[in-house]
Structure formats: structure tokens, C-alpha cells
């Protein structure tokens, strides 16, 4: 199913991320679709908080992957911008991170579309203005009950 949201500020995008993060469990893979500056890292900041991790999420562009370890769930945040082959992907340790107590959040998931799990939850972020975003979540019915109240 596809669920569409409109956020009016980074704070609202974080709030939506928080609602998504609360609904995630180990083994989930978030696959982001969206251009530079669309808010993928901002959204991930919210997801981390929703998962019970801290909000000190930074862009994984330079490290390729940032790990946020929790007592229960952990989050691994990838940037696949420079990953263009299966061999490249292997060297990020992507497959090592797929684990029953780890959530993967993958920026530039277009680049590894053939290697994403069938159960991946796709989140498309589109700029509709400087501060406003259209955010489309393509996933299962766990996300059906997220409403405007979650954006506050």
C-alpha cells in the first residue's frame, strides 16, 4: 500500500520519521528514493528517535554507512550514491548488516535496486518548496494508521 504525507517543515518530517520508526522491527529495510536535499537524513533522524535511539544522525555520505547501536534494535544508515556494482555493494558490508535486530535505512537505494529485500519499505521524498515535502511511503499496513496528528 502507498501512504502519502505532506510535511511543512523539517520538524514535521522528523515527526513523521518518528512515527515510522516506532513501527519498525528488526530485519526491516527502508529504501529511500529522492534527490539531494530532499530530507532523507532528516527523516532518518526521526526514525532513529522512533526506534528509541538518539537523534544524533548525520549524513552517511562520507562514511558510506553509519551505525547506531541500541540495546534492542540497531539502525544502519547507508549512502549508496557512489555504489554502482554488486562488488561495490559487497565491500560496504551491506549483507553483513542484514540481521534480525537491525533496521537498514538506505539512501540512493535506486543504485542497489536489484539487491534490496522483497520486504523493503520504500520512502519517496519530493521537494514541493523550500520547507515543504511530499513523502510517499510504500509499505505494509503497519503504516496505515499514521495520521496528521503524528506530524505535530
Amino acid at each position, binding site marked *: 500500500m502507498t501512504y502519502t504525507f505532506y510535511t511543512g517543515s523539517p520538524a514535521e518530517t522528523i515527526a513523521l520519521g518518528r512515527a515510522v520508526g516506532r513501527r519498525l522491527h528488526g530485519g526491516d529495510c527502508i529504501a529511500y528514493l529522492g534527490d539531494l536535499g530532499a530530507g532523507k537524513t532528516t527523516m532518518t533522524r526521526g526514525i532513529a528517535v522512533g526506534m528509541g535511539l538518539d537523534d544524533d544522525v548525520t549524513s552517511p555520505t562520507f562514511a558510506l554507512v553509519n551505525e547506531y547501536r541500541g540495546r534492542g534494535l540497531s539502525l544502519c544508515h547507508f549512502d549508496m550514491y557512489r555504489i554502482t556494482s*554488486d562488488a561495490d555493494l559487497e*565491500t560496504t*558490508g551491506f*549483507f*553483513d548488516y542484514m540481521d534480525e535486530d537491525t533496521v537498514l535505512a538506505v539512501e540512493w537505494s535506486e543504485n542497489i535496486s*536489484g*539487491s534490496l*529485500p522483497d520486504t523493503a519499505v520504500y520512502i519517496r521524498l519530493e521537494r514541493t518548496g523550500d520547507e515543504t515535502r511530499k513523502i510517499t511511503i510504500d509499505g505494509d499496513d503497519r503504516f496505515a494508521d499514521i495520521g496528521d496528528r503524528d506530524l505535530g
Partner: protein
Amino acid sequence: MLILGIETSGKVASCAVMSEERLLAENLVYTKLTHSQIILPMAEELLADCSLTFKDLDGIVCAAGPGSYTGLRIGIAAVKGIVLGAPHLKCAAVSTLEALCRELAGFTGRIVPVLYARPGKIYVGEYESSAAGIRALSEDRITDEAEFFASLERSVPVMLTGDRAAEIKSLYFANDADVLLAPTANRLQRASALCAAFLADPSRAVDPEDLAASYLQATKAEKDKAHSEM
């Protein structure tokens, strides 16, 4: 020959000290923690427990793969680093799948070690275990799980081992008494099995610079096939 084994190819971090006559010490921990932080202190502690130093050893062995990409690199880097400081050591890297079979060396029949690679994909090998030892029947490979087990050769008793073995047994062979599951304690990687493989065939020793991981990437042909199906 006195051998130190270092196993980091999967979730288990393990070290062992073993000679032809006996296993002197072994430590293994199933852990999510980074093997790079665990494995060297574990090796040092184990040697200290045996009142040995690296100087007393004759050889050192790690897993060549398949397995965790990062884990394999940690094991090989550890061995290369240790050999830098102890250049007399003979070193080797042993197939992770062969080593899993070595844990079941008393079994007579076919052993199929199977490790989870990624969704739907497994690392798998086929080995014959007999009084003569462990012998590979085919090359270790990465392949489609359902396809491989649909056509499994079953004219002899088969024992499944490795981190995916329990799921394979229940998914495909739940009611098949001729497909056995390795005992829990012998189903995952452990360093003594690497030592056993090296001791069984000391000619595996290579120059440290030639020590290489065998990641078992999908072959070009498989990729082309996958691509054409997209």
C-alpha cells in the same frame, strides 16, 4: 605442529590452539560485537592460558570464506599482522565450508554445509566424509537456496550443517529421516575445525602475502541471467 586458529567468518568469534595430538584450548563466543575488537585479545588470553607465546607456535590459520565480508577481512588481516611479528609461522586460510565439515568428521556420508548469504541465496558446498577424511565433491559456491535443495542428491545419508542448516531442514526436509541436522554444538564455525583442516594437510601453507579471502561472488553468468530477468 602447534597451530593457532582464528575464526571470524560468521557470528562466532573463536580461537583455538591445537596440535596433532590434542586440542589444548578453545574459546568461542556467539556475538554481535565487532570481531575486530574481540579476536586479538581472545587469542592472547588463550595462549596465556596455555602458557604459550606466538613464538611457541608453528602455524596459524583463519577462514578463507565464504562468510561475512567484514569478518573474513578481519581474520585474514589478523593472521597477516601476527605473521609480521612472528615470521616463522606457517599460515593458511581454509574454506569456511570445509571447516564446518571437519567438525562432523566422525560421520560417514555426504555433508552439506550451508551458510546464509542474502535473501534467497546461500553459500553451499558438498563434501564426502569417510574414514579417508573430508573431500570436496564440488566447488563451494553462492547459489539459489530453493533451486539447490530441490535437486539435492540423496542416494547417501546427508547431514546439513552451518548457520542456515536448521531452517533448511524444516523448510525442505522436515519429514525426511535421511537428511540429518548436525548437532547444535557442531553446527557453527569454530577455530579448532580450522586447525584440524590445516593439520590434516600442512601443504596448504602459503606465503602471508598470498593469503586471500574467497568471498564467492555471484559469477558473471549468474549476474547476466539475473539482469535479463529484471
